[in-house]
């Protein structure tokens, strides 16, 4: 397991230039915490409506919601969901000294305006759009695709515009990175229209049509011809020297989308067709333009419901409707997804507003503890969001948190190059060893023995908990503070909270009478325990 130790120095040198160039291009962000929410961000009605819906649901099922979580706990959730790391001590101190009203909501806006949000969320969204596979080398540039998404998020581009671009953009995968959504499905010298159709409905409408791909869907009303009709929208998409283009003709002949009939084995032409909402489909335009217009049409409830459900899932670690890419048909009665979806649509498909609304509503602010002792009743509470769900952190979140815990200062785009590059390599390595969740990242998962061993005895956690002059552990151990203060800081750095009385008593005993290097060893051991406890690697 010494694998990352060896390559890190030579690779640092080799890639330093590349990293330096790409990072230098990044803009700095304002660190100011807004004192007021911008007027156009007024969320009052939306939050009230969401809260009312939950109040109704809780009283209908006779549920008592948890008490509100304390602000630091919510602050930790926000940082994990939006930046993929726990907050730094620096940030915690600033947050705690902010005594103006609406502290959490204003800090959420601050998190959203941070470069770390755009980068982290871009990766999350990329997974839902193109999965994790590498695609065909040269024709598919995942890095550019993610950077492009990050740029869209930084500019807060409306979500429907982003999706339109993904489906309908022409051009080169390098110069117009949105086209990587298409080239990711290019193999054996052609576009895989079925793969594209399948991804399109899964990612943007939260519908799975993959069963219909080979036969009629066994459960729903989706059929094979409907699926083929959707695939036909990608039937004009061609790869040319100047990139991806739609062509109606090839060598003067009309280009048709042909498939082999499974019964007769004859080739038949399939015309573009949508399975519902024909009236939303424009009569004119390229096939992909028409499809993009249909998918993002304001009356296509599936479009807004799918992204609301996914964002909810990324914020809570668990979506409202599971699985995110196979949601049931919307019903006549508007539910929570519709309430949030409508607000999202009416405010120009603003992802930041959607995130602010969800994170300001009651369920996000509830504690993950509940007085209900009966297991079945407790799960009913969880099912109806009357208690905040405890979910496993993604591998990147665990690594991000470990690295952040090892540093007193905030690790972000303003940290120095060395810290960031080291972070980059460590992350890659740890994520591979820790096991990536791959595509099904919102599925419920428990930990494994390998991961536990890696966390307990692996090289990275060992390095990070060493008391060196630069590490948080070293600084805490060698600072002049009392043992009490030392413990407080250690807990804040690792768990974003202060110790309980029981913890304080037990751990002060470990620090008592320890000086110099012995104290450093004792602090290292406490830090190890903090990084290995359940609370550290679960969202709560």
């Amino acid at each position, binding site marked *: *397991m*010494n694998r990352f130790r060896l390559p890190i120095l030579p690779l640092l040198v080799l890639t330093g230039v590349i990293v330096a160039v790409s990072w230098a291009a990044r803009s700095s962000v304002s660190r100011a915490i807004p004192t007021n929410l911008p007027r156009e961000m007024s969320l009052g009605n939306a939050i009230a409506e969401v809260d009312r819906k939950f109040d109704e649901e809780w009283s209908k099922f006779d549920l008592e919601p948890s008490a509100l979580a304390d602000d630091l706990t919510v602050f930790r959730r926000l940082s994990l969901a939006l930046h993929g790391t726990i907050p730094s001590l620096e940030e915690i101190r600033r947050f705690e000294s902010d005594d103006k009203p609406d502290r959490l909501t204003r800090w959420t806006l601050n998190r959203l305006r941070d470069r770390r949000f755009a980068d982290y969320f871009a990766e999350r969204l990329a997974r839902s759009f193109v999965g994790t596979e590498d695609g065909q080398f040269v024709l598919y540039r995942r890095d550019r695709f993610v950077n492009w998404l990050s740029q869209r998020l930084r500019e807060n581009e409306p979500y429907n515009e982003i999706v339109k671009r993904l489906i309908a953009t022409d051009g080169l995968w390098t110069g117009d990175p949105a086209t990587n959504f298409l080239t990711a499905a290019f193999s054996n010298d052609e576009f895989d229209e079925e793969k594209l159709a*399948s991804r399109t409905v*899964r990612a943007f409408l939260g519908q*799975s049509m*993959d069963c219909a791909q080979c036969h009629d869907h066994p459960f729903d009303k989706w059929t094979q011809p409907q699926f083929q009709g959707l695939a036909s929208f990608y039937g004009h998409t061609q790869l040319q020297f100047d990139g991806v283009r739609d062509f109606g003709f090839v060598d003067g002949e009309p280009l048709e989308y042909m498939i082999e009939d499974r019964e007769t084995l004859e080739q038949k032409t399939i015309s573009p067709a949508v399975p519902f909402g024909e009236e939303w489909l424009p009569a004119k335009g390229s096939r992909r333009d028409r499809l993009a217009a249909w998918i993002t049409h304001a009356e296509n409830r599936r479009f807004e419901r799918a992204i609301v459900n996914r964002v909810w899932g990324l914020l809570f670690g668990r979506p409202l409707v599971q*699985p995110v*890419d*196979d949601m049931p048909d919307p019903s006549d009665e508007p539910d929570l997804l519709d309430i949030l979806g409508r607000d999202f649509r009416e405010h120009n498909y603003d992802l930041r507003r959607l995130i602010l609304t969800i994170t300001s509503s009651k369920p996000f602010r509830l504690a*993950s*503890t509940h007085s209900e*002792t009966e*297991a079945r009743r*407790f*799960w009913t509470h969880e099912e109806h969001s009357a208690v905040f769900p*405890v979910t*496993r952190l993604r591998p990147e979140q665990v690594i991000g948190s470990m690295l952040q815990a090892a540093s007193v200062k905030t690790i972000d785009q303003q940290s120095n190059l060395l810290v960031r590059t080291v972070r980059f390599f460590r992350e890659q390595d740890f994520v591979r*060893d820790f*096991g990536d969740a791959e595509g*099904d990242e919102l*599925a*419920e*998962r*428990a*930990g*494994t*023995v*390998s*991961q*536990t*061993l*890696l966390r*307990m*005895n*692996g090289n990275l956690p*060992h390095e990070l908990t060493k008391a060196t002059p630069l590490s948080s552990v070293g600084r805490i151990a060698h600072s002049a503070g009392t043992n009490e203060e030392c413990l407080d800081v250690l807990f804040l750095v690792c768990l974003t909270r202060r110790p*309980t009385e*029981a*913890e304080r008593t*037990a*751990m002060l005993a*470990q620090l008592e009478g320890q000086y110099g290097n012995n104290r450093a*060893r*004792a602090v290292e*051991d*406490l830090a*190890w*325990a*903090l990084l*290995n*406890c*359940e*609370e550290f*690697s*679960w969202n*709560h």
Partner: protein
Amino acid sequence: MTSFPDMIRRDALKLAAGLGLSFSLPAMDSRAANSRGAERPKSLILLWMAGGPSQLETWDPHPGTKIGGDTQAIATSQRGLQISSLYPRMAEQMRHLNVIRSLVSEEGDHERGTYLLKTGYRPDVKLTHPSMGAVLAHELPTSKLEIPDHISLGSSPAPGRGGYLGDQFDAFKVYDPGRSLPNLRARVRDERQQRRLAALDVLSQTFASRRPQVSSRTLHQHTTKQALTMMQSEQLSAFSIEDEPEAVRDAYGDSQFGRGCLVARRLVEQGVRAIEVNLDGFDSHANNHEIHESRASELDPAFAALVNDLVERDLLDSTLVLCIGEFGRTPKINPLAGRDHWPTGFSCVLGGGGLGSGVVIGATDPTGKKKDPTDPVSVADLFATVFQTLGLDPAEEFLTPIGRPMAISSGTPLERLQKA
């Protein structure tokens, strides 16, 4: 790198005893190694040939034909059965085994083919099926084991996964078997380790006492205990081949795969339920013959030594050995002297675990003109055979997380392979 004698530290037992309830250890119990023959709990050893081995250069040679290439055939200890001359040592062992030469699948892509051959099901976007080994670990838990009961040895592009059964059934990965075990040694001396675990205990109690229901679901305490148990288990010695006689190690061959097969035999003796040993590099789109020569130089001694060892130790009847990859390779030799992907009419070797022996199923067309083999066997039927042999009812259903019932295998066991 961790060395083995260092890892098994008796002091660690004392250490855990001092911890109180949370991280205390289960009592040691008798080992599966003590029993032999049919009374023994059954195990599976999957020899995974990543990349898709050519049937023509392994178990289904067609010498002297247009499709046969440079590969010759040799007689084996099984009357009437010939295999590729690249496998002289396996030829001696074939009487203990069976060959299927007519496997058919619809997956000619590495990733999809691997998924099918590891799980018995075609890829499905809605759920991830458990691998063969994960199903066994789930259905036949071994209470006496302190090390994982689903283990992958050697570097593999796709180690067995727990899928919808849960990540805790993922194969435990040992990348360099017989040489090093990752992350199994504590980083500090016992005294400090004890202090660390004491602090961890306090923290765990805080979290769990506030969330009793949740904590049982996260499995965090459970896996922590498992990890600590494993770190100090004497059973870890099963991963080490240092105390094996040199002659034995030589017989398996000085390769990662050879060491993996030897470790697999030791793990079986320890009672591990499912082990996969990986041999990569079969994707011979160019220079097919040279590639298979090189692969055979590792596979032949290791596989043969493994079978021989299992027979001599009376473990073969309780250990099913299956050697297979994600598909076979084209009868046609391409302009680069390679063979491409071929999911119809590929071969596998299997035996032991209570199966009969000496059976050859199916045949491929020596001219290469007919795509379909005679007596085709589906991947699902192969899986059903393995599960039934190891004592499971293939038709039994799991309820998957999406609420869809799913049979352990959708196939029908091949009665011809059962003991007469």
